[in-house]
């Protein structure tokens, strides 16, 4: 059987449990005695089982070690000292790396082993031991083993060649046999040989040998094991490959396109028109549902961040607390995967360069421990993530000085620049990646990578900083990368789609336009206009009636189009622009009437 078929499932499931493991270990460090140790134990246990089933011995062994330590803590035999937590976190990292390593190779054993039963409380032995019992084996069959009674018979029969077999409990295996049974041996039995035979008799998950005394000790009622994680509807959920969901989304997208083409050809009255209207409603619902299906809580990205902050803070000898909020805000799965790196980068920067040393903080009248808040909130069809530290802020003068030296600013440029200009300098590849700059400016290592990563997701990032008070990054992301609500506009004879993520409103250009300055007055604010017709080199003239107001941070611009045709759900197909193409497009799409259109990235023109 080809285990590769299970690989995706393995990767996603272990991913969840590795995150759970990290989170609960960190939790355990903070508050002992809570449920954290149980949670960590379960995560390690599950990781062991999953990995063993895939034949990934190394991973399973690593998980086993963790499971053992956690069991010690659970049982109260060891205290979760910081050193021990450090050690376990390091092992969790190792485990994660081992999983990555393992899945890059072909599974080693073509055996779906041990769909291991939870090693729950052993079946209590309510029968007396046969006289002369010196050793007892507790045998557990696989939970999904077929015809367990026949299997137990085979186990017993295979032991016939071993001397000293006294019997079993239950003595007979009937249809209700649970799959757990005790085998009794006398003092002359070769228990090592017996163990090997039992383990090799098929469908056996575990064999535990114990003395009669140990058996009695282990069958006194034990405290109940923690209940399974609270997943009320777990048994009613199924896992679906994300690829398949994408396939469904694509299919629905195409259906919408066909629908859009069919609609004008059918009279709005009569049965056909009615059916079509209903069909349209169903399609809209389907689109929304499939988008929902792809959404996962940001927790999946946020969960690993406390660890990042903790490690970074330890390295530089700072005390930093990370406060996480809004981790239940949902966003498209594909965006989650891509957003972790930028967030990690920003947090490391905040710890490294934003938060001051404890002495400095105390001098400035702040608490010695730094504080970083990360939060998320849903804003219409986008998600805003903010990362705010209470550190010293970006040293404006130093950055400007650096920028002058690098020739990014004229020699006499004033240091009195806006946050936005400051951020642009920080994200300038020539400045932000220069090693020595980070030491001087205190911020900016790889900031260009962060900014471009977020842009690639169709998002935007801006920054506010106040000397002595801290720095806040604000990231706005589309909820979904594939399906986006977009405005359909006409420029000349061509139609374009503009995703709504960064659009505030559309205004009529007949009034309030300052032709000379090429600006529009919008509620007392002067907004520059961008003539898309000129920019995109559309040959035909047009009325240029409407401006779409795009927002990026504090800046606004009015994208001038000839006509705002409407609003529709589009399926963006990203592309790598060919050399020499205008750099304003983030992809292409099929409009509802089947017409292909380029998707304009409003941020590229601000």
């Amino acid at each position, binding site marked *: 059987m080809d285990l590769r078929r299970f690989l995706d499932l393995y990767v996603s499931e272990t991913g969840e449990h590795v995150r759970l493991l990290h989170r609960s270990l960190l939790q355990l460090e903070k508050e002992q005695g809570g449920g954290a140790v149980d949670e960590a134990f379960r995560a390690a246990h599950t990781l062991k089982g999953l990995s063993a089933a895939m034949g990934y011995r190394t991973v399973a062994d690593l998980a086993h070690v963790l499971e053992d330590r956690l069991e010690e803590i659970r049982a109260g035999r060891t205290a979760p000292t910081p050193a021990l937590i450090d050690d376990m976190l390091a092992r969790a990292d190792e485990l994660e790396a081992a999983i990555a390593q393992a899945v890059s190779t072909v599974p080693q054993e*073509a*055996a*779906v082993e041990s769909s291991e039963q939870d090693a729950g409380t052993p079946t209590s032995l309510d029968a007396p031991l046969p006289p002369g019992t010196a050793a007892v084996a507790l045998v557990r069959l696989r939970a999904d083993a077929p015809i367990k*009674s*026949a299997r137990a*018979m085979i186990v017993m029969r295979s032991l016939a060649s071993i001397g000293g077999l006294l019997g079993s409990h239950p003595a007979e295996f009937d249809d209700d046999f649970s799959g757990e049974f005790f085998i009794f041996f006398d003092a002359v039995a070769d228990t090592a040989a017996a163990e090997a035979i039992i383990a090799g*008799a*098929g469908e056996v998950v575990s064999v535990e040998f114990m003395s009669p005394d140990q058996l009695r000790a282990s069958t006194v009622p034990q405290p109940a094991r923690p209940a399974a994680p609270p997943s009320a509807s777990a048994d009613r959920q199924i896992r679906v490959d994300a690829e398949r969901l994408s396939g469904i989304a694509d299919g629905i997208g195409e259906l919408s396109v066909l629908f859009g083409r069919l609609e004008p050809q059918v009279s709005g009255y009569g049965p056909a028109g009615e059916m079509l209207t209903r069909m349209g409603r169903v399609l809209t619902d389907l689109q929304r549902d499939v988008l929902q299906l792809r959404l996962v809580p940001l927790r999946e990205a946020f969960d690993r961040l406390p660890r990042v902050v903790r490690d970074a803070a330890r390295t530089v000898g700072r005390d930093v607390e990370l406060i996480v909020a809004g981790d239940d805000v949902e966003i498209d799965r594909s965006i989650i995967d891509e957003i972790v790196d930028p967030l990690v980068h920003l947090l490391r920067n905040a710890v490294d360069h934003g938060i001051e040393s404890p002495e400095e903080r105390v001098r400035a009248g702040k608490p010695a421990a730094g504080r970083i808040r990360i939060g998320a909130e849903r804003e219409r069809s986008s998600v805003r993530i903010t990362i705010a530290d209470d550190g010293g802020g970006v040293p404006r003068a130093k950055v400007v000085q650096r920028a002058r030296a690098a020739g990014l600013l004229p020699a006499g440029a004033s240091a009195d620049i806006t946050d936005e200009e400051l951020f642009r300098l920080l994200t300038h590849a020539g400045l932000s990646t220069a090693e020595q700059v980070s030491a001087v400016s205190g911020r900016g290592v790889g900031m260009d990578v962060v900014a471009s990563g977020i842009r690639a997701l169709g998002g935007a990032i801006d920054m506010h900083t106040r000397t002595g008070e801290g720095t806040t990054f604000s990231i706005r992301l589309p909820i979904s990368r594939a399906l986006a609500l977009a405005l359909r506009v006409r420029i000349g004879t061509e139609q374009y789609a503009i995703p709504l993520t960064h659009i505030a409103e559309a205004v009529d250009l007949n009034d309030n336009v300052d032709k000379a300055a090429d600006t529009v007055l919008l509620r007392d604010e002067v907004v520059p206009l961008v003539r898309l017709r000129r920019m995109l080199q559309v040959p035909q003239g047009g009325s240029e009636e409407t401006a779409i107001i795009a927002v990026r941070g504090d800046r606004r611009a009015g994208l001038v189009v000839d006509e705002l045709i409407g609003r529709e759900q589009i399926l963006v197909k990203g592309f790598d622009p060919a050399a020499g193409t205008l750099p304003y497009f983030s992809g292409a799409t099929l409009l509802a009437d089947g017409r292909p259109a380029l998707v304009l990235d409003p941020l590229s023109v601000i």
Partner: protein
Amino acid sequence: MARTVLICDDALFMRSMLADILKGAGFEVIGEAQTGAEAVKRYKELHPDLVTMDIVMPDMGGIDAVRAIMKEYPQARILMCSAMGQQALVIEAIQAGARDFVVKPFQPSRVLEAVQRVLG
């Protein structure tokens, strides 16, 4: 030398599927039988290393075939192939001398594990 197998099942689909799994693992399928009586006859001719035996077959059932083979060849290694719900029959077959069993629908890994145990 490849280990030899005699496959006994009245359904062609089951025989081909088993043959497929076993050949894939390097076994040599040297014969097939569609009834219990044929299974006994073929065993005598071929002396295979392993027999896979369906339980319900026309003419003579698998369990009777196990008894007949074991009576003459106590060292025979027979793997029962059972459908769901044949618990009592499987136990009967084990008592008659079958070494192990697999349950349909077949999972190749489980079939091969069982074969290894029977031959091991």
